């Protein structure tokens, strides 16, 4: 689906304005990254797209029509993995299917079919506490994918991981996103991550957040590690960093 934010603003009850006059557009099947300094309102933006917050000004359009309630239209992945410690990995991943009305058995079966692709083989019946940070994040991503929505909203999914695991999961997300074309909005503060994975990047200003820069990434994805070393990629990263205030 096409997702569009027009003049979006959010002022919280305490008087803090997180976003002000933000314009942004996500085409069907597109992978859009939103980059910004911490506290710029990127998580707020995602929560609004997920239907958890109602904007105090501006509007969100879905396929060109103002969206009344976005709740339940997108699959949202919060910053923390939010895996339930009392459920097995499989039952955690299948929770979206269960809530969509599938029986527990059906939900498990469908989740079981996907664990291989998500690198969770052999861990289906373990509990989240037994998983490494990277595997927990994969399980959370599988839960997000299995929710069966066209639009995925990922809130800094790799922020809490060590650098090597993060690289690994970025490559893996690239492949999964390629094989399973959905519309993805990825919020991150990692410029390289955004440039490596996304079709298009929005850089937000400091709070209150609005769009400071919009960049289309070349060459088209999927991109391999060789792209990371190219002068074009370095130039793009530099433009992003300069916009963020790093000279």
């Amino acid at each position, binding site marked *: 689906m096409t997702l569009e934010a027009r003049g979006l603003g959010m002022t919280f009850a305490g008087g803090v304005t997180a976003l002000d006059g933000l314009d942004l557009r996500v085409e069907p099947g597109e992978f859009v990254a939103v980059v910004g300094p911490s506290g710029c309102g990127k998580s707020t933006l995602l929560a609004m797209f*997920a239907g*958890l917050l109602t904007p105090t000004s501006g509007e969100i359009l879905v396929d060109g029509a103002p969206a009344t309630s976005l*709740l339940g239209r997108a*699959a949202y992945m919060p910053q923390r993995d*939010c895996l*339930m410690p009392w459920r097995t990995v499989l039952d955690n991943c299948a929770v979206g299917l269960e809530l969509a009305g599938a029986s527990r058995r059906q939900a498990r079966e469908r989740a079981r079919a996907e664990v291989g692709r998500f690198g969770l083989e052999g861990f289906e019946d373990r509990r989240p*506490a037994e998983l490494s940070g990277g595997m927990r994040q994969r399980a959370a991503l599988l839960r997000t994918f299995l929710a069966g929505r066209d639009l995925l909203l990922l809130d800094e999914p790799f922020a809490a991981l060590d650098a090597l695991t993060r690289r690994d999961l970025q490559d893996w997300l690239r492949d999964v996103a390629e094989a399973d074309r959905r519309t993805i909005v990825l919020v991150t503060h990692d410029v390289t991550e955004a440039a490596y994975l996304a079709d298009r990047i929005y850089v937000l200003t400091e709070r209150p957040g609005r769009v400071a820069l919009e960049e289309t990434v070349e060459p088209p994805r999927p991109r391999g590690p060789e792209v990371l070393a190219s002068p074009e990629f370095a130039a793009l990263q530099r433009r992003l960093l300069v916009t963020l205030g790093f000279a």
Partner: protein
Amino acid sequence: MRVLRGAGPPVAFAALVVAAWALLTAVTGIPESSLPTPGQVAAALWDDRAVLADNAWVTIGEILVGYAAAIAVGLSLAIVIHASRAVERAVYPWLVVSQMVPIVAIAPIFVIWTGFDLRPKVMVIALVAFFPLAVSTIDGLKAADPELLRLLRTLGAGRVTRFRIAQWPAALPSVFSGLKVAAALSVIGAVFAEWVGSGEGLGYLVLTYNNQVATADMFAVIVVLGAIGIALYGLVLLAERLVLPWYHDERRAL
């Protein structure tokens, strides 16, 4: 095996206390009416076994029914209070007040209302035992991860579903903490209820032996009461292990 190994230290400690007790009575020559020797208590346990068993069944029955009532009242109050801010504000303070009023003063009223049967005992037990369960359940229900609840909302989960999937399971460790405290209080409540108005039961037996200055027999009753308390607590612990394997695995892993 784990359970047996866990029982080692407390049993050893109990043996130490009994040995010190035996030594104390032997050295001081304190009269039996003040402090009987462990041997005299053991003898009383054996001699009174028929009376103890008969009355123990009465008290066990009161404890089980009272405990069940405390659980029903405690859990449903906790859930209603959790569900409604208005109910919480209106009712919660009175729950606290219900614990401030001395049970000693209320119990005779229960007897006046209902007589000498099972009912006043169940009421006293429920009154003393529901409170810790209700409070820890309310706290447990509040402890659910708000981010998880938001996530479930985006997946289309309504209030009842969020409760079932996230809040209740997250509250269970606290629920069991409350159940353990309530188990201990149920035994105390039963004994006390029997003191106020009963013609049978272990609490009644303690009073009777007390009037006869049959101290060794009183100790024997206390031993049986302790055993009942430990058994009830053990059952709750066992249920916790069965219901919350994830909780114990997680804590072992830490």
